[in-house]
């Protein structure tokens, strides 16, 4: 779901893209500074409420949780490892922080057009042009990164289906190798397409 804007009229949708970006950045810093499982759980609760508010409860339970399935499996494994290695409080804190930031990033992309993000980043970085920073290029890189998430998931699904069609769905090599090759090829093709369109010139 990260990378997929959903039109809406909520307060989060109306908030300027720059404000939302700065807030996400600030919360990211806060999760590093404010330690402890309680703070992490509080951040996670806020993220869940904002996401439900932005997408609606039905969409949250359906699309959002389904699209975050891979992340949830990963953090479950991380949680088990952390609990075993460092104890429950540390595991709750680590996993809570990761999930809170992932959900808040989803809130940002669900409620903000990528073009608005481009504008906000370009405007925010404009003063750094004096020291040689190409604000347009940084903004484009940011936008492409967001766009790459659903595109990569689409490639993963296509690769899974291809492996399934050959009866190799349980063979990690049959899924991972073509997936990596296709991701690199897509990145190369996207670069060529951007180059051909003169984007970034």
């Amino acid at each position, binding site marked *: 779901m990260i990378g997929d804007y959903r039109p809406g009229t909520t307060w989060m949708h109306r908030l300027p893209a720059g404000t939302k970006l700065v807030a996400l950045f600030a919360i990211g810093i806060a999760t590093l500074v404010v330690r402890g499982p309680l703070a992490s759980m509080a951040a996670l609760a806020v993220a869940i409420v904002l996401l439900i508010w932005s997408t609606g409860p039905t969409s949250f339970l359906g699309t959002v949780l389904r699209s975050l399935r891979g992340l949830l499996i990963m953090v479950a494994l991380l949680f088990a490892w952390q609990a075993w290695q460092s104890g429950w409080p540390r595991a709750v804190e680590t996993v809570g922080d990761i999930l809170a930031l992932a959900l808040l990033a989803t809130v940002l992309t669900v409620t903000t*057009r990528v*073009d608005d993000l481009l504008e906000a980043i370009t405007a925010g970085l404009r003063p750094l042009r004096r020291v040689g920073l190409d604000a347009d290029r940084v903004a484009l890189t940011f936008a492409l990164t967001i766009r790459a998430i659903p595109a990569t998931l689409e490639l993963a699904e296509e690769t899974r289906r291809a492996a399934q069609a050959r009866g190799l769905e349980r063979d990690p090599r049959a899924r991972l190798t073509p997936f990596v090759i296709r991701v690199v090829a897509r990145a190369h*093709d*996207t670069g060529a*397409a951007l180059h*051909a*369109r003169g*984007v970034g*010139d």
Partner: protein
Amino acid sequence: MSERTIRLEQVTVRVPVADGDLLILDTTSVELTEQRIALIGPNGAGKSTLARLVNGLATATSGRVSVDGLDPRTEGRAVRRRVGFTFTDPAAQLVMPTVLEDIALSLRRTHKHRAERDEAARAVLRTYGLEDLAERSVHALSGGQRQLVAMAGVLAIEPDILVADEPTTLLDLRNARMIGDLLLGLRQRLILVTHDLELAARCERALLVDGGRVVADGPAAEVVEHYRATA
């Protein structure tokens, strides 16, 4: 600029492979002045490489390429403004989430203000009958719509030349005809890489490329007939 000629002089393209160099295009010299030119030939013949030289996506190992007097190697930015390029698979070309945003991306260089850019993008969509798709996710488009949006994104900057690399290969018959008719009706000069010989025959000139060389060159209908007879 008065010159309207794409010129390849003794152009060779080699690419490094595991066991040396692979010859893609072999000392090719052509001068392209017609409005609609087709590049035909078997897979791996060097057609796409020849087309990519025009936009600077491929560079000559030796020889010289000139596009309306510009050298793609040293004047790449000016050449890219003059030459638009569309790919076989439009999926890689559509880089923004919605159709409107993707068209607007092409216009960022020429329209600095967001509202102005969006209006210009909507005008482009209207030109190609795509206005109903403005807010649609690029993931939710059909194959024909994707190719059309990709082309609109390139044509938005109003290039003088459009290079289309197998634009109908992934499309069904109806969409292939629609895209073909659109391409042949453009005001831009067209260089069309295609396996669709009916479409190629409607161009003014065709080049048959095989084994990295132009083996036939002339009126499109004659070259297509020659290819049919010898393939």
